[in-house]
């Protein structure tokens, strides 16, 4: 187990510089991050050559006419043209269309209410939702996206395939139940904080039942014998429940797509994870990473092919994944 963790981290360190160099932004590029509200356009951030952003502060510009709330596209064009004007005034040039493109979402999120209603003239708004998220760390996120992609194809997938070949499905399901059970306290707290008392009670009963009758969680007897299903509520969802937005999109290495809010939630959930309370003497960092790696391999063994289908289906996989993340989390928060 320990050596597996060692190999894992070694390959990670090898892969990081590889991926970063592959996705370095063009030297002369200027990244714009525009924060717009109803009346002002301000804040232009410049990133040149280096990754560390240097900020060029431009004075806030009053808009000549207020943003027209019901046409997002027009607002965006208005803001873009204003932005270009401001840039010219200050001698900033943007090259590379990807730059403006990358930032268009952050711009939109701050500006106009969503209206993607198609030109059909009916008030059919059932499936039109605002799923936009700010992406100011676009280059970081893009390189992490590529890193995770390689991580999956070069490491996670082959290991999971090998594991799947030797471990029969019932064993893998038992392992999945075990880890699922360990995360139960975090779900209990999540349900409690959202005043979902019945669900919190369910989680408590599940944890107790599965930890004992379910043989330390390997069997989900609470579900199979008592019909008590799990209620997925992590801390990120709890924050969302109380109206806290994503902040911005953040792709984490290995963990995958996340956001500022959900990363905070992820850290908070670790506090409620029993393994976090085993002392360093008994569970070294390497062993803990190994357990995490094993969990990931087990999880992946059920989903080989899903990521491939996702990539195959997407026109721009990065954008597709970001959108899917926001949509999926939105549903989880709503439930």
């Amino acid at each position: 187990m320990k050596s597996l963790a060692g190999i894992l981290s070694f390959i990670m360190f090898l892969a990081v510089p590889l991926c970063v160099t592959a996705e370095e932004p063009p030297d002369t590029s200027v990244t714009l991050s525009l924060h717009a509200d109803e009346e002002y356009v301000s804040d232009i951030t410049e990133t040149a050559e280096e990754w560390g952003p240097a900020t060029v502060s431009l004075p806030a510009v009053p808009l000549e006419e207020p943003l027209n709330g019901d046409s997002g596209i027009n607002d965006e064009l208005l803001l873009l043209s204003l932005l270009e004007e401001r840039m010219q005034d200050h001698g900033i040039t943007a090259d590379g269309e990807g730059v403006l493109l990358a930032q268009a979402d952050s711009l939109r999120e701050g500006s106009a209410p969503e209206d993607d209603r198609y030109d059909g003239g009916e008030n059919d708004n059932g499936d039109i939702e605002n799923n936009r998220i700010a992406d100011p760390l676009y280059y970081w996120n893009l390189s992490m996206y590529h890193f995770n992609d390689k991580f999956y194809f070069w490491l996670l997938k082959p290991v999971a395939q090998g594991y799947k070949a030797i471990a029969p499905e019932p064993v893998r399901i038992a392992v999945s139940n075990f880890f699922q059970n360990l995360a139960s306290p975090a779900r209990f707290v999540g349900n409690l904080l959202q005043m979902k008392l019945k669900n919190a009670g369910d989680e408590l009963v599940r944890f107790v039942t599965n930890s004992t009758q379910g043989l330390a969680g390997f069997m989900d007897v609470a579900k199979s014998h008592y019909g008590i299903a799990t209620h997925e509520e992590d801390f990120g969802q709890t924050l969302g429940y109380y109206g806290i937005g994503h902040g911005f999109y953040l792709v984490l290495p290995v963990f995958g797509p996340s956001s500022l809010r959900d990363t905070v939630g992820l850290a908070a959930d670790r506090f409620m994870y029993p393994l976090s309370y085993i002392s360093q003497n008994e569970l070294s960092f390497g062993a803990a990473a190994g357990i995490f790696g094993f969990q990931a391999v087990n999880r992946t063994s059920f989903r080989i092919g899903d990521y491939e289908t996702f990539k195959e289906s997407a026109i721009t996989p990065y954008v597709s994944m970001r959108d899917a993340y926001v949509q999926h989390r939105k549903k989880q928060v709503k439930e």
Partner: protein
Amino acid sequence: MRCLLSAALAAMVMVFPLAAHANTPLATVQVHVNSVLEVLRDPSLKGESKKKLRQDRIRNISEKMFDFTELSRRTLAQNWKEFSDSQKKDFIELYKTVLESAYIDKIMAYTDEKVVFQKETALTDKTSEVQTAVMTRKDEIPINYRVIRTDDGWRVYDVVVEGVSLVNNYRSQFREILINKTPDDLLEILRKKAGKS
């Protein structure tokens, strides 16, 4: 009399598949999904040599199941009106090809999973959402179909898997592309994607 009866019976038999579609949104989706499952479980269609045949059958069903025009229109949303009629036509065809080739292998990988048809919820007076779940041995995957009433029954215009709407997802991708590319550029991108697979 007898002649009339058999004529009526024959007419009924011919009409029956149509009638099954025209029912409720839930029944419509159920009929289509079950016919896909039948293709997948049909012993006479098993094996690598019959793969092409299975694909064709599934494509035929998807043709009847989906309203690709509606799906395309909703995906492009505001950008729909930027497309000329012939561009729209090309877009619908290419988008369909891209979707089919991306998902057909995934669909064909389904074997013993059970599909549960849960309920339908009206979205508007013309559209409805049908909730289903695919039960694997480990967990269940919620898949919702959004359908619209057309002249020939309910047609699917969006599929929502675990909260992720297909139409919304492609919309965000096409929207970013169309910010500084023309409809023709987008069609070219789709053409490449469709041709490759």
